[in-house]
């Protein structure tokens, strides 16, 4: 496939892997313990597992799978709110597909649908708006989910609804923002990270400047990375290069998509429709200040939270779940007591087991065999 295969070239991958091994040899720190690089975004986690990227790398560098899977960090109480909305007889509840399986305290949206709720999978918020136009007698609610990547399309949909004066459309806003969360992780006392792969598609919207504090204040190198396997490998190389040269900067590997200042039109739409919440609850990480957005007063008529009563309860994560430690890279997924026993993709307890971008599901699906043997074979 043109413009895709070029970024999956195995010969270039081998060259890059060789370069990375060479760099690692010059980094003294990497001799004592593996360097830990956190990929913030779930899209990277997906690529790393799908293409077997970790196996191309030596043991002295490893990935920590960060909090950037919006489905995975959704707290149970919010899923319960979704279910409560979906179960109202007048409501058509629309959602992205992979949010359907996320467990609430009693059930998932998939289960609510089986029990009779009108839950429909859409591919874009505009599809939800289309449903609202077609079903004037129903209330169509869109489950807005995701980081700055999906925020602009939701914002534009709300603007469109307002322009057309569509009264039976509203948004259940669960959009979250990545920067405060990275900051929370960096402030965590048990942190051992050596560098970051920055989220490429979030950066396409917000630009690279919001990440400056990571380098300036926390002294960690970060590379904004693309999602094809060669993008990921090259970005690892760039982070290691910074470490080897003692630099801490924000570098942009994904220049073909990401501009330093981001996308002004997208940012304007976000700014017009959304405002920061005081705090937002994250699964596994707890409450993080200013990490979520809500619909502004001016668009109150399109805000499901204002229009419908919801349980709005805070449900604690299951006690034995160690999603937080996994998210922060303190433990690996398979080191969690529940991994593969009580918590599996069939019966996920923690949300990291739910989405294919979740670290635990990815480990379970792609990584259960001992990969050390494979690694030797590929290196040889």
């Amino acid at each position, binding site marked *: *496939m043109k413009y*895709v295969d070029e970024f*999956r070239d*195995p010969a270039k*991958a*081998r060259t890059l892997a060789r370069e990375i091994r060479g760099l690692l040899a010059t980094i003294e720190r990497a001799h004592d313990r593996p360097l830990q690089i956190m990929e913030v975004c779930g*899209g990277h986690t*997906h690529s790393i*597992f*799908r*293409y*077997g*990227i*970790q*196996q*191309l790398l030596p043991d002295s560098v490893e990935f920590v799978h960060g909090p950037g899977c*919006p*489905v995975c960090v959704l707290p149970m109480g919010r899923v319960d709110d979704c279910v409560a909305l979906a179960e109202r007889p007048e409501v058509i509840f629309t959602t*992205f*597909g*992979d*949010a*359907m*399986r996320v467990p609430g305290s009693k059930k998932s949206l*998939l289960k609510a649908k089986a029990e009779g709720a009108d839950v429909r*999978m*859409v*591919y*874009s918020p505009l*599809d939800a708006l289309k449903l609202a136009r077609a079903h004037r007698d129903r209330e169509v609610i869109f489950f807005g*989910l*995701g980081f700055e*990547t*999906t925020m602009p399309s939701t914002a534009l949909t709300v603007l469109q609804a307002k322009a057309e004066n569509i009264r039976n459309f509203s948004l259940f806003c669960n959009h979250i923002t990545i920067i405060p969360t990275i900051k929370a992780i960096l402030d965590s006392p048990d942190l051992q990270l050596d560098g970051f792969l920055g989220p490429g*598609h979030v950066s396409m919207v917000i630009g690279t400047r919001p990440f400056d504090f990571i380098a300036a204040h926390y002294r960690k190198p970060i590379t904004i990375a693309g999602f094809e*396997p060669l993008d990921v490998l090259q970005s690892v190389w760039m982070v290691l290069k910074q470490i080897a040269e003692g630099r801490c900067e924000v570098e942009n590997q994904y220049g073909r998509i990401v501009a330093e200042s981001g996308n002004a039109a997208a940012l304007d739409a976000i700014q017009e429709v959304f405002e920061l919440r005081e705090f937002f609850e994250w699964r596994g990480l707890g409450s993080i200040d200013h990490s979520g957005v809500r619909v502004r007063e001016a668009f109150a008529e399109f805000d499901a939270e204002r229009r419908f009563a919801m349980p709005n309860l805070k449900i604690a994560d299951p006690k034995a779940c160690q999603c937080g430690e996994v998210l922060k890279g303190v433990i690996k997924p398979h080191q969690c007591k529940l991994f593969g026993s009580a918590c599996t*993709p*069939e019966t996920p307890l923690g949300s990291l087991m739910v*989405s*294919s*971008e979740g670290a635990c599901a990815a480990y*379970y*699906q*792609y*990584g*259960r*065999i001992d*990969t050390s043997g*494979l690694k030797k074979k*590929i290196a040889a």
Partner: protein
Amino acid sequence: MNDRANVVLLTPRRRASLRDTHVTLAHGSGGRAMRNLIEDVFLAAFDNPLLSPLEDQAVLPLAELAAHGDRLAFATDTYVVSPLFFRGGDIGTLAVAGTVNDLAVAGARPLFLSCGVVLEEGLPVETLRRVVASMRRVAAEAGVHIVTGDTKVVERGAADKLFINTAGIGVVPKAVMISAGNARPGDAVIVNGTLGDHGTAILIARAQLALEADVASDCRPLGGLVAAMLDACPDIHCLRDATRGGVATVLNEFAASSQVAIRIDEAALPLREDVKGACEILGLDPLYLANEGKLVAIVPPEAAPRVLAAMRAHPAGRDAAVIGEVGEEPRGIVVLRTGFGGERIVDMLVGEQLPRIC
């Protein structure tokens, strides 16, 4: 008009004709309306000596069956696809090809099918005729006869337009022993063409996506292809059609039943460019997408070139390819060598494949 009516009265064996434009509850009531529907729609299309007496059962001659082999293969499947029509096929082509293929992958020669339909009140008769015409065409292509059937009509809303069940009987030739448990280390893994076409065609036909691509379902009967493969190598170890759950699911079934490892090469998978593109956009894996005219075969390594050549010489196997091989460890696991040079496990799917958010 009077003359014609008289002719009908005087020749009672002449088939009844159906004037209704839509299916009503009367068509399922057992009376004249139902008879008209059966004769004018089903019998007119499927006509054969075993069906035309319209008894409550078809009576199959054992001698004819025994001439083909020493064991019967018997399979059933129910078809509820929505929408009814899509590029490359419809529920009728599926209903015949699907059950024929379930028989064929046992190495059986498919011979007879039943056809049970559940019709929703209000279904346009024209729609039913189109579907039945497809069934007739695919049955002829597959060399099977539809010899018995049943019609039910349910109230509007109690079914979605049209459901079809077909059961089929085929005969397995002596010495053919195909089973998911027969894979041996060293064996070659072969597919007969491009993967995921049907699943993609259905996704596009559902029109939920603003995606346009010229992908047609691969729906077709595979009895002829399997016969050609068995001619080339009577000792095919495993054979299964890769319908729901796709090739990944079939390979997992083989690996688990045979307690072997199966390694496949991403670069060797036959994939249409537009299927690849659709999967790329939606975050789907073509290995899990449904096919309706694709099978996975596991054959002894020395027979692989022969089988492959026989497949490529057949219209249903033109794009056949060896996609991997059977190994010993890790047992029960399917491993994919990525085009990028890494490896990953290809597991059974949990639930439905859901598109990723971003």
